[in-house]
C-alpha cells in the first residue's frame, strides 16, 4: 500500500517535472521538427515548407485558399484574421514565443491545415513548414 502510494507520488512528481500535460514553454521548434521528421521518416525541407505555406490551394475552404490569407507573406509582421484581429508574427526572430507550446502548435496545425488544404497536414509537411518558419 505504502509502496504504491510512493510510486504514485513519484509518477506525479515526474509528470509535473516533464510538464505534462503539455503547457506553454514545453517544447521548441527544433524539438518539434525532430519529432515530426522522425514520425514521417523524412528529412525536413525548409524549401518545401515555404512552397506549401506560400502556395495557393484548392482543397480547403474557399475563404482561406492559402496560409498567407491571414498570415500574409511578411511573416515578421503581424497578420490579420478574417474577423479583423491581429495575429502575432510567425517568425521566432521577432516573436520568440512561437513554437514553444506543443498543444498550441498541434491545435493550429489541425485547424489551419483543414481550413486551407481540407485535410490535416502530414508529419512530413509539419516538419517542412516548421523548418522554414523557424528559420525566419
Amino acid at each position, binding site marked *: 500500500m505504502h509502496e504504491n502510494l510512493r510510486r504514485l507520488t513519484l509518477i506525479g512528481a515526474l509528470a509535473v517535472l516533464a510538464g505534462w500535460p503539455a503547457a506553454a514553454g514545453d517544447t521548441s521548434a527544433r524539438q518539434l521538427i525532430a519529432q515530426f521528421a522522425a514520425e514521417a521518416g523524412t528529412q525536413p525541407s525548409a524549401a518545401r515548407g515555404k512552397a506549401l505555406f506560400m502556395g495557393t490551394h484548392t482543397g480547403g*475552404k474557399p475563404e*482561406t485558399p492559402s496560409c498567407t490569407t491571414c498570415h500574409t507573406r511578411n511573416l515578421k509582421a503581424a497578420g490579420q484574421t478574417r474577423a*479583423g*484581429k491581429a495575429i502575432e508574427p510567425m517568425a521566432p526572430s521577432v516573436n520568440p514565443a512561437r513554437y514553444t507550446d506543443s498543444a498550441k502548435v498541434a491545435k493550429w496545425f489541425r485547424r489551419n491545415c*483543414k*481550413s486551407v488544404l481540407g485535410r490535416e497536414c502530414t508529419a512530413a509537411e509539419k516538419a517542412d513548414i516548421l523548418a522554414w518558419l523557424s528559420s525566419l
Partner: protein
Amino acid sequence: MRNPVRNMLMAVPLLMFGPGAPASADERMPVVTDALTKAECGACHMAYQPGFLPARSWKTIMATLDNHFGEDASLDEADRAQIEAYLVANAADRNGRTGWMLRGLGQNDYILRISEMPWWVREHNHEVSQRAWDRAGSKANCTACHRRAEQGWFDDD
C-alpha cells in the same frame, strides 16, 4: 476552472442576481468572465458577450466548430463543452428572458451571426458609413468602431 459542474454551480448566483442583457443599446453588456471562453473565442475575433445570442444559437455554433463561418475552429471536447455551458448559461434568453435583443426573432430562427440579429441590423444599417465599414473590414470586428466593446460598451457610435 475546467470542471464543468463547478463552473455551473458558480454560475448559479449569476443567474439569480447577475445583470441581464442591457435594457437598451446604450447600457453596458455584461462582459465575458470565463477565462477559457475569452482565450479560445478571442484568439480569432473579439470574444463576443454571450448575451448577444439566444442559447439555441450558441449550441448550434458550438456543435459546428469544424466549419465556423468558413474556418476550422475545432476544440478538444472538454474545452468545447465548458465554453458551450458558459455561453448557454449567459445567453440572451437565459431563464426565459425576453427583451429588445430578441425582438423580431422567431422561436425557430437559428441565427448564427450576431450581425444578422434583427436588432443588430436595425442599429447598424442606416447609421454606419461605407468608410466605417471599409475600415472595420468585417462586421465581426466590433472593436474597429466600438473601442470599448470588450468591456461591454457599445454606445460610442
